[in-house]
């Protein structure tokens, strides 16, 4: 029972991180109907930003977190302005956007290897192995901080999307981008806002992942793949679905690696992806998007 409780906390922490990234996928998909394969770059840069911040600049974790968020947001904005925007203005095929994202993610990962080498980097925080005892289980302080920050961020994003004027424009654009532009909404500006938002969340996710697991170049691609699976399981383009999918996936993974075998964990994730695509391709809460006119 104690083990089970610990596993649940762990699943919540991992699920929260997945959710931060998969909401980024869902936001961009809901507006532009394409999968941002360059999302992992913002996560990678976030995870190395906290490493640089805590080893060279400051010793305060929260200042490092803010630095990571800024780096993630700036990287995402740069990617949007240099790569995606010209293609969107030209009205290129969606597959071009997918492939260019792949190219950018290759550049990002290998730049990190060139700069930092592919060794594991420990993030020097004072959480270390600190834990508190709750209901007989030892729960690491870091996990609690992760869960708290993720919940606050997700709540913030939902309020932003559902309660503000900007959010209203974004929701309108997700129904029909072209008509929204005709109604006098500066769609390009809102696309940049979306990318900044997704990048900031990716930055936080990168910081959390690096602090929880250490920073290494392929960390982000592995984890964004998982969060991408979550957003597919929940339904592409659905924010609520992305969050639900993240917690389903993380719970499944933690339970499998806790009670069966940790080697089966990744197999479970990809198996779930294939199963969902075969049985219910639109995911739990997805809408049906068609290629046809």
């Amino acid at each position: 029972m104690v083990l089970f409780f610990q596993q649940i906390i762990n699943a919540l922490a991992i699920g929260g991180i997945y959710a931060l990234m998969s909401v980024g996928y869902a936001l961009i998909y809901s507006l532009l109907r394409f999968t941002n394969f360059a999302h992992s770059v913002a996560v990678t840069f976030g995870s190395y930003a906290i490493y640089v911040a805590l080893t060279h600049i400051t010793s305060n974790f929260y200042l490092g977190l803010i630095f990571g968020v800024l780096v993630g947001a700036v990287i995402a904005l740069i990617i949007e302005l240099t790569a995606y925007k010209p293609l969107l203005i030209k009205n290129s095929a969606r597959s071009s956007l997918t492939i260019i994202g792949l190219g950018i993610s290759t550049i990002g990962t290998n730049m990190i290897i060139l700069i930092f080498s592919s060794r594991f980097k420990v993030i020097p925080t004072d959480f270390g192995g600190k834990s508190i005892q709750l209901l007989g289980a030892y729960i690491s302080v870091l996990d609690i901080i992760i869960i708290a920050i993720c919940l606050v961020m997700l709540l913030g994003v939902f309020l932003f999307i559902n309660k503000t004027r900007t959010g209203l424009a974004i929701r309108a654009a997700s129904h029909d981008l072209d008509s929204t532009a005709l109604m006098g909404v500066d769609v390009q500006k809102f696309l940049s806002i979306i990318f900044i938002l997704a990048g900031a969340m990716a930055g936080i996710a990168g910081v959390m992942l690096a602090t929880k697991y250490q920073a290494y170049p392929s960390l982000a691609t592995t984890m964004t793949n998982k969060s991408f699976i979550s957003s597919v399981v929940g339904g592409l383009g659905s924010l609520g679905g992305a969050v639900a999918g993240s917690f389903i996936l993380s719970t499944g993974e933690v339970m499998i690696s806790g009670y069966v075998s940790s080697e089966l964990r990744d197999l479970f994730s990809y198996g779930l992806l294939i199963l969902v695509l075969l049985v219910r391709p639109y995911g739990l809460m997805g809408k049906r998007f068609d290629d046809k006119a």
Partner: protein
Amino acid sequence: MTYWLGVLVQTCIYMIAIIGVSILSGFCGLFTLGHAGFMAIGAYTSAIVVNTFDVPIFVGLLAGMLLSTLLGLLIGAPTLRINGDYFIIATMGIGEAIYLLSQYLIPVTGGPYGYMDFHSFRGMEALFYVVPILIVVIVVTYFFIKSKHGRNIVALRENEMAALTVGINVYRYKMISMGYSCALCGLAGGLLAHYMTNVNPAMFTSTKSNDLVIAVVLGGRGSLTGAIIAAMILTPLPELLRFSSAQEWRLIMYGLTIVLVILFRPTGLYGDREFSISGLAKWIKRHSQRLMKRGEN
């Protein structure tokens, strides 16, 4: 000398796989992020079949092709009916799942150390297998894309709705492209297995899958010539750039080239044209005329 012959054999093998992916991603416009997985299926099947049943390598290659095609059609059947994004995701999932399975199923695949000690090509024997197969593949593919079916596939890439209205069975042609690409990737995987004498999961990572698509995009979406040229340039590249950090620089250049090609030359280097003798003659004639005009001025 044998080293360079080895590079040649590998280039030919990857060319078969790249031609396969070119049919799916270049001609049919369906991108894939998991075709290294189908190469893995071909490789393991061929190696295991040859080892267990003690049959000639040819039979093993056919078995690998067959299984990889069947799996490809199984994955394609539900996902090709809907939006193209789901297809990309499905290929990514299947590629990654095959990679993980080949690591996990140690009794069948030998796990991370690989499957070894099966009947393989001896020395130059590989060339006598690979080169004729490659020629057959190129000729068959050439006639396939020049046929009615090839034109239908290009039509549905250009405008699915229009293709549907003139009576092309879009779903069927997507399935044909998927089957064709998986068959060629399975064949290439099998050849790779018998050439390498060892099949291990690291040969079929997602990076390999991405390399296949990247080759097609760079060569030209919808050009067999482009795919062949891309394979000739990109496959030996890692062999040439073996010094220290060249590998990272190579991948950065790959990524950068992809970004630049998509931004400034979306059709790829060779576009959707094909190399032909008459085309070359026309090109020379046009340019020589231009040069002569310049000379007169």
